[in-house]
């Protein structure tokens, strides 16, 4: 999660309006779910790979690593869809060719969908998507808590990491007994520090005029017509290619 967050903030497209990236990822996702899978899905995966790696400049290894986990899960579980249970004469496990076809297309669709989400995760900080929530009617208080949590997670992780290192430096994790004791101490100290931090943060924010509402302005980003047009073009192209291929194969 942390690596993808890092890339999300620094990739070549990090300044692009989130809606542009959302359009591309969301559009491809719709295509992946609706169009014939065997032909369209591989095209989508290829296109998303190229956009993420060559477009946004994410290392191919990172893309592969992020794809690997859900893919592994899908590849090991989806084949079971090809099997069905037959109870007519006792219990029988039946393997059917139609089942195999269904399983294959589910697998491809899912992989294509994952590639769209991977693109979005690697190019757009999650937090940039939160203001969109406010627009669809999520209460401001909930959105504020999400924004604040996002920041505090990192402060917390930093504290946890330094505390952990300090314990390692003093042999805190040598042997089971020390390990358990150290972990317990770390957790209690983190809890105390979090309380202390929230108290001080309240002072810090009050000094900045905080009166109960965390209002902020996002950096101004304009939607580029050219990029929206290219995204739309790409979506149309993929859809056309998928359908034509499907027609020729049949």
């Amino acid at each position: 999660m942390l690596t993808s967050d890092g890339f999300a903030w620094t990739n070549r497209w990090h300044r692009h309006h989130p809606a542009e990236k959302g359009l591309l990822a969301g559009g491809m996702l719709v295509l992946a779910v609706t169009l014939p899978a065997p032909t369209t899905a591989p095209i989508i995966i290829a296109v998303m790979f190229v956009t993420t790696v060559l477009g946004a400049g994410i290392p191919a290894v990172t893309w592969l690593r992020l794809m690997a986990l859900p893919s592994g899960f899908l590849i090991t579980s989806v084949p079971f869809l090809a099997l069905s249970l037959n109870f007519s004469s006792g219990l029988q496990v039946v393997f059917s060719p139609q089942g195999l076809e269904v399983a294959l297309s589910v697998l491809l669709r899912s992989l294509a969908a994952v590639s769209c989400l991977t693109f979005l995760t690697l190019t757009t900080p999650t937090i940039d998507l939160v203001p969109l929530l406010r627009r669809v009617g999520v209460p401001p208080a909930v959105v504020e808590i999400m924004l604040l949590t996002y920041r505090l997670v990192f402060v917390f992780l930093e504290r946890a990491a330094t505390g952990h290192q300090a314990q390692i430096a003093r042999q805190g994790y040598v042997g089971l007994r020390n390990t358990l004791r150290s972990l317990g101490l770390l957790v209690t100290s983190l809890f105390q520090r979090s309380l202390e931090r929230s108290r001080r943060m309240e002072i810090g924010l009050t000094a900045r005029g905080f009166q109960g509402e965390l209002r902020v302005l996002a950096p101004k980003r304009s939607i580029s017509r050219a990029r929206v047009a290219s995204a739309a073009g790409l979506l149309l192209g993929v859809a056309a290619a998928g359908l034509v291929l499907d027609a020729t194969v049949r």
Partner: protein
Amino acid sequence: MTSIALAANGIDYTYPGEVRALKQLDLTIEKGQRLAILGANGSGKTTLLLHLNGTLRPSAGRILIDGRPLSYDRRSLVALRSRVGLVLQEPDDQLFSANVYQDVSFGPLNLGLSEAATRSRIDAALEALRISHLRDRATHMLSFGQKKRVAIAGMLAMQPEILILDEPTAGLDPHGVNHLLSVLHRLHETGTTLVFSTHDVDLAYTWADQIAVFADGTVLKQGEAAAMLADRELLRTARLKMPLILEIAEALYCRRPAWAAIGPPRSKDALLHLLEQTIGGPQ
């Protein structure tokens, strides 16, 4: 004629648990001045600064703004904090937003500024701290020095009349310190009153107009910087040492008593000049 912007009159403060942090403390901040609050660790500097923006309320004595006692109702406090900006020592206590630009926008929006005015304040504040290139950066990906600048920018964007910084140079490298001092220099030239706390006598000596020497929860003495730091007795009581420049100058005065009349050197260059005269000049 100087006019007093903010003052503390005989304030006392005790933390829960009977830690008596401030005792009978007096302090005056004049308009347009650069004041250093100089004291050892744990002497109560932070506690005092928290009184100056109304975060803490003295158990005795009072805070005066424009000569009138501060009242502690919500409205007065909000008004006070729009004029008196406090930058805490730890930037993580003041930064709450995911990216730099959003974070700096917080203060101006709280002042009720329009979106357009807020955006121009943000641009100006980022420019003043020379961090315009960080505007889209994630807060958690900044170095300590960068976070500190962002925290200061967040306060500058509110354009306070009095800017108070708690140990602003703590944790900065020499380059970071120089950078900060040049930012403060420009602010001072545009008329902002500046107050900062430190335990660094050399810094206080070269930077401040006035120094309030702080020890054990009270201001021992407040006055012109060179006079405060030349007072060995005072420094000893406050567990501070004399600035290096002054120390060397005093040694020189022993050999050339007549030079003491010129007045103490205020900068490294002035000291070097004095040294050249001693070494190269006629006996």
